[in-house]
């Protein structure tokens, strides 16, 4: 087969990744409802991982804060789309504008993503000056602050009580639509000049700065896009479960999303998608193991919680033996024939 022309080659990773995600969704649509729901949840995680990748992959700074943006998205969309009657029961002290709002789903989702993006712009502007490990700890601070604020701002978020009665419009196809959008946004962004400059600063901050790269500006751009996508993932998670709990947007979810990105490979979009898919499949298998299977008359089941232990162990092994993850920092390439560049 003849090697394709240059623009086609350049778009190949995007096309291949979209094809993979679409095929997974289509196959899942023929499976029982339980498996469909699991696939939907897996795709939501995929969006979150792609969102995290946009910042971590391009800037090289590990972020522990993206789950905070997921929480922001989830709460904003929940408050805007829930029925006013439901809100008056759970949150009697809401400001009138929010209490009477009943936005359509898409508007609520976009609002959730945009609020997350605006918050990331405000907190990122000072914090993106930091580098390396200090920057990671600063993003961790974002996570803790968000957790404490959402957990105690009882008038607006319900505090430690869950926010219930969200419209559950999220199904396999809505999630697939957003997953496609997320992958396209991440890919188009990483092909821009801004992302290229940011990756240069990731490889060698001093040299990039000496060559005139405004690291702060480009990091901030990546951070805002990343926060928007994370916000969307949070919106979808909220409307998928129909319930928003502050506990579900904290360390466990952070660990899961970070683990997916690291295992897949934080250096490429392919890695982000691969990590999300591999871990989703693995988690599902482990879950089956915990439920147990029939062997003759006895049911053999793994103890509950084993899945988490194995996930952590795999992450550890990947870091030790393949620190760049499954994808190793590369994108998918055109598989048929090579032309010397």
């Amino acid at each position, binding site marked *: 087969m003849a090697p394709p022309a240059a623009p086609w080659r350049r778009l190949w990773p995007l096309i291949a990744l979209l094809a993979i995600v679409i095929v997974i969704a289509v196959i899942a649509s023929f499976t029982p409802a339980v498996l469909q729901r699991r696939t939907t949840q897996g795709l939501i995680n995929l969006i979150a991982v792609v969102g995290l990748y946009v910042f971590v992959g391009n800037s090289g700074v590990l972020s522990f804060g993206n789950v905070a943006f997921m929480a922001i998205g989830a709460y904003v969309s929940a408050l805007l789309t829930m029925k006013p009657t439901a809100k008056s029961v759970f949150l009697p002290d809401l400001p009138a504008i929010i209490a009477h709002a009943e936005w359509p789903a898409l508007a609520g989702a976009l609002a959730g993503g945009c609020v997350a993006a605006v918050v990331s712009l405000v907190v990122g502007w000072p*914090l993106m000056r930091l580098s390396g490990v200090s920057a990671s700890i600063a993003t961790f601070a974002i996570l803790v602050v968000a957790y404490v*604020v959402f957990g105690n701002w009882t008038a607006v978020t319900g505090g430690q009580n869950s926010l219930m009665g969200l419209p559950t419009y999220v199904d396999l196809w809505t999630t697939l639509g957003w997953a496609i959008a997320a992958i396209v946004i991440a890919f188009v962004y990483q092909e821009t000049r801004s992302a290229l400059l940011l990756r240069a600063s990731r490889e060698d901050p001093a040299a990039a700065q000496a060559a005139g790269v405004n690291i702060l500006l480009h990091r901030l751009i990546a951070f805002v896009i990343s926060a928007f996508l994370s916000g969307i993932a949070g919106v979808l998670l909220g409307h998928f479960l129909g319930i928003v709990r502050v506990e579900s947007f904290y360390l466990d979810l952070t660990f899961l999303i970070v683990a997916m990105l690291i295992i897949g490979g934080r250096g490429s979009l392919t890695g982000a998608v691969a990590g999300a898919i591999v871990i989703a499949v693995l988690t599902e298998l482990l879950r089956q193991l915990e439920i147990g299977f029939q062997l003759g008359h006895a049911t053999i089941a793994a103890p509950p*919680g084993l899945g*988490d232990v194995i996930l952590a162990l795999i992450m550890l092994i990947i870091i030790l033996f393949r620190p760049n993850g499954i994808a190793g920092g590369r994108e998918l390439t055109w598989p048929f024939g090579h032309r010397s560049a």
Partner: protein
Amino acid sequence: MKEFVQILADAVSVGSLYALTALGIGLIFGVMRLINFAHGELITFAAYTLLALSGLPPPVMLLGALSVAIVLALLTERAAFRPLRNADPSTLLISSFAVSFFLQKLLILLVGSRLKGLNFLPGLGRQVELSGVRLQLLQIVTVSVSVILLVGLTWFLRATRLGLQMRGAAEDFRMARVLGVRANRVIATAFALSGVLAATVSCLIVIQSGVVQPRMGLQLVIIAFVGTVIGGLGSLPGAALGGFIVGAGAILLQALLPPDMRAFREAFVFIAVALVLLLRPQGLIPAVGLRERI
């Protein structure tokens, strides 16, 4: 006035607990540039050792907790951090994050995630009266133990050969190796010391709260991180000072904030971190030789 002194005593004793925790993290960061999330699990495992040994004489329990924390610290170093010694700090950070979750989930798998009561050395809960002010005996013990450990650690770092090597390694690891410092021994010593600090913190926390729970260490360590960052990553006096400020600050905020703002005190603490990072990115007491030269 009396009330104020009591709040102050509270602040000082909690502050010294966090200072010890931050010191354990700072010690490892100094020699390895590793932010050790897994330090929290050392504390948790030591606490569960106390639970497992409860009923035996207290010195045996203490010894058990101490040895478990030290062995676990050395094991994590050997298995997860030594192979990555030449990797960049963010890889090390991820590795410690994974170790921390692995140990925590393992513990939940083994003993369940429920809170368990543990009545360890209840005699220390007694009130004592010192010139008109009522203090808990435990507060006095906490502060004295912290001071003893701080003095001991300082003595070790200043006066012994291994301590000198450790300070050298913290300043310029490669140069220290060239001059004949044994990297493995220095790093293992640092991890063992962090195990001692973790076990001490663990015992004091268990006496104070009377419960153990798989998440207890992580919660402590998250706050203590903030201390090490505020104090200056890589600087031991900085870690101790930063940890103390954060712990004492949280207690003072709790006492001084209006009641409906109290729940947000951790948010204030973390906002303070972000501010310190911005105004003094190297921390209050900057470490020597941390900045990469080009």
